[in-house]
């Protein structure tokens, strides 16, 4: 437990020292979302209808930008090798890095999303569900992205490959995340899509750290 906390603190400290990495993810999120009014026209009703989908798609794409630094820097400077041969279970190490990634990327995305919601004229009834769904959704994206990042570690063109890998796997998050916000706006109960998101989160929480640890071990061979 102590090592997990130590690892999380270490990763957060590194992220804070390289604040521009996190900021560029958020900047991408805002810029990409603000492209849509130019593309589809500034009609407020149309934007309000599309807002949940735009928010989810751009948040996902912004998160994709952050995965390459999840294991890559540790892989390059040799820290990862020490973490792999350390006496702690490797899935715990992977989980610690995933939690740190969520705290440094998921939370900022979560904070920025209501702002973009206002820009896109999202209905006021949708915000509460948006935050809850986004919290679960970004956590799932961090978990699946960590698996993808661990698998592509040391490959050629890892950035493109990572998106090719992760995007098909996170489609359910997109469906149920946007579905929850849509339901809240439409005046229905958002409980069902939120429960599905929660289930996905639990399944990923069990499988992804374990899968990442296998992939990390493969990268050390």
């Amino acid at each position, binding site marked *: 437990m102590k090592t997990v906390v130590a690892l999380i603190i270490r990763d957060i400290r590194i992220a804070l020292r390289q604040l521009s990495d996190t900021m560029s993810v958020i900047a991408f999120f805002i810029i990409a979302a603000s492209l849509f009014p130019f593309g589809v026209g500034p009609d407020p009703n149309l934007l309000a209808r599309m807002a949940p989908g735009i928010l989810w798609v751009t948040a996902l794409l912004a998160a994709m930008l952050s995965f390459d630094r999840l294991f890559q820097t540790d892989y390059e400077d040799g820290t990862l090798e020490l973490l792999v041969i350390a006496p702690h279970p490797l899935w715990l190490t992977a989980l610690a890095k995933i939690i740190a990634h969520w705290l440094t990327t998921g939370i900022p995305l979560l904070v920025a999303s209501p702002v973009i919601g206002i820009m896109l004229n999202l209905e006021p009834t949708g915000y509460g569900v948006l935050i809850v769904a986004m919290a679960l959704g970004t956590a799932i994206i961090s978990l699946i992205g960590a698996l993808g990042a661990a*698998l592509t570690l*040391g490959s*050629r063109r890892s950035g493109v*490959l990572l998106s*090719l*890998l992760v995007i*098909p796997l996170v489609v359910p998050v997109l469906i149920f995340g946007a579905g929850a916000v849509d339901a809240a706006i439409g005046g229905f109960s958002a409980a069902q899509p939120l429960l599905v998101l929660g289930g996905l989160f639990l399944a990923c929480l069990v499988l992804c750290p374990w899968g990442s640890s296998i992939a990390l071990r*493969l990268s050390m*061979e």
Partner: protein
Amino acid sequence: MLHRFANPTRFLRLANAVLPWLTGITVLLIATGIYFAFAASPPDYQQGQTVRIMYVHVPSAWMAMFAYAFIAVASAVGLIWKHPVAHVCALAAAPVGACFTLICLTTGSLWGKPMWGTWWVWDARLTSVLILFFLYLAFIALANAFDDASRGEKASAVLALVGSVILPVIKFSVDWWNTLHQPASVTKVGMPSIDASMLTPLMLMALGFTTLFFVLVIIRTRSELAARRVNALRSARIHAETGELETSPATGGKQS
């Protein structure tokens, strides 16, 4: 049984013995299947002649899923028992499966236009098959992304296992969601709701596609094993040559 075929030579001996028979059966099945599909089966009372698309569409859809299941099982065998030929089989099956998925999507689209009035709808069955196609692409890309081939086949094997969650989603998508795509009519419990005159060509084609899949996988596995042997021989020769050269320090080093 499994470990006997970890030896490529033994695997190749079996593959070479089976291949001519399997090829013959495939030609026979698909030829009679085509005859039944085009000549000896009636047009549908609602869909008319377009129902004949089914004899390609449905078997290729089954094969798209079967090939992925095959890859997932082969990957698991390769990871768990460190079985070298299993990894090669999984890699050999991936482009074949991707082709079946693409055939399924294209023929479905061609069938959808006259029947539903649209080439494409974002319903659960179509979308999940599209994701399956993306997974095939990701699997192939990941397998080829590393300089060290064994790293690529292990990483892609993990991906294949993770991605296998898509299979039940595809299978049950027509039951879980209310879709435009019709629900299963052949694999229904009890009597299939499809007439024997149409079931015959469908089953012939499905069996023919299955044997075709194995023929292609065997051929591709064989050529991949041959390519690896060529590579190994070539690098052994280079090592032998540079090994001699490295004894003289003036020409060594740069040669490799």
